[in-house]
């Protein structure tokens, strides 16, 4: 059943006929537009076999795989550091010591107001002048972490705050320390509740690695540019790279959706206060 069918009343005979007419019109319009676009792209040589067959050459595949490896490496390192820094900052914000909570608050507020790209360029161009020598990979990872850790911190914090108050009370009544309460009761449940948001943000983080292009880090987009300019198929290469990110993104989104459907049937701890 389509989304709006649940929203609108059942369609009457006239409306059904209108929907059929609209569908037919739109289908023919789509066909005409697609035909026009394909013809125009064909005229400009976009579909020429030689521009696509490049992707079948072993050397080209190897060249792109090195770029893909760069992307995967940067994404994995950034994910690990963003998640751990994010967790640390979330714990700071939840701390009962005012000063620590305040530091966490300012970390999040200030760092997330600045674009990821600016952080990456800051790490790459400004850190060396402060005496910190940094490779393009680590500048990218550090820049991505500075921004994404604030998002993960907020996700973790929201997860802990969403848990029923009874969870905390029961754990304290059992004689657990605050540390044990966090580690064995609140965090495991918070991570479970927040898994869909965490996965969604990890897709954003993966997309952010393409900013490495700006500082000359050899990831997929930078390699794609080199290939496209060399082989004269820039449009084809960029389209292929976009398709790669779309496939990965859709797969992770589907996973997140199935998890959030299951989270609806989740344990007592996930219910709201």
């Amino acid at each position: 059943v389509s989304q709006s069918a649940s929203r609108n009343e059942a369609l009457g005979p006239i409306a059904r006929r209108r929907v059929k007419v609209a569908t037919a019109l739109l289908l023919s319009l789509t066909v005409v537009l697609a035909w026009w676009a394909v013809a125009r792209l064909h005229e400009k040589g976009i579909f020429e076999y030689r521009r696509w067959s490049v992707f079948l050459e072993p050397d080209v595949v190897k060249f792109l795989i090195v770029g893909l490896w760069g992307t995967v490496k940067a994404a994995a390192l950034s994910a690990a550091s963003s998640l751990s820094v994010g967790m640390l900052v979330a714990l700071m914000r939840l701390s009962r010591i005012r000063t620590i909570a305040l530091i966490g608050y300012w970390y999040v507020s200030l760092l997330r107001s600045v674009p990821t790209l600016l952080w990456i360029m800051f790490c790459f161009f400004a850190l060396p002048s402060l005496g910190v020598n940094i490779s393009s990979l680590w500048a990218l990872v550090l820049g991505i972490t500075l921004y994404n850790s604030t998002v993960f911190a907020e996700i973790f914090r929201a997860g802990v705050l969403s848990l029923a108050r009874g969870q905390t009370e029961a754990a304290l009544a059992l004689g657990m320390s605050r540390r044990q309460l966090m580690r064995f009761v609140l965090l495991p449940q918070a991570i479970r509740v927040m898994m869909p948001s965490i996965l969604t943000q990890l897709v954003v983080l993966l997309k952010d690695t393409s900013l490495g292009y700006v500082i000359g880090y050899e990831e997929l987009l930078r390699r794609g540019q080199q290939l496209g300019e060399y082989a004269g198929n820039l449009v084809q290469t960029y389209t292929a790279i976009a398709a790669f990110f779309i496939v990965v993104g859709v797969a992770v989104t589907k996973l997140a959706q199935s998890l959030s459907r299951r989270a609806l049937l989740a344990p007592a701890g996930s219910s709201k206060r």
Partner: protein
Amino acid sequence: MDEWIDAFRDGFLTTVSLSASAMVGAALVGLVVGLLRVSPVPILQKGMAAMTECVRNTPLTVLFVLFYFGLPKIGIRFEPFPSSVIVLSIYMGFLLAETLRSGIESVPKGQIEAARALGLSYMQVEIRIVLPYALRTVVAPAGALAIDLAKNSSIAYTISLVELTGTAAQLTTSTARPVPAFLGAAVLYVVITLLIGTAFSLLERKVNRHR
């Protein structure tokens, strides 16, 4: 010192005007796509949902370079500023459409049924009843998207637009002092996001006055 002030002023104004133009564009794209996504015609819904997946899963950097460096190969060419406005409007517009869609779907069914019972047509219901309700719930997430848009405008640097990020890069080359260049730009981004955040919380208060 004058060099710094001039550069930052130009960069700041470019980022602000780029963000403002793209916000208008994104609002238009978002409204059209959002309405198409709740239309009773299945092909429109499905087509727009598929396009949303494609747009939001592609890195913005890829969209920028594809638009600015790729499209001239098939005879479509724009200057950096209009290119940035178009790319940001489409990208953020589809994201806005997604929040608008969930806002529209959260409108109580009874409201729609009552309006239909009073004899309003589908479009009248959408425009007079559903949209006003939905727009209220959308103000807060739209504010978050507007802040994201201003931050995402920094990626226009990849197509050689000299906005705030580009200004910091240029100052780094001309003065060899990257730390104040980038920190200055960072402070100005904080100012911009604060301004947008304040504007939207005022708007939110205004829209929810009668609740």
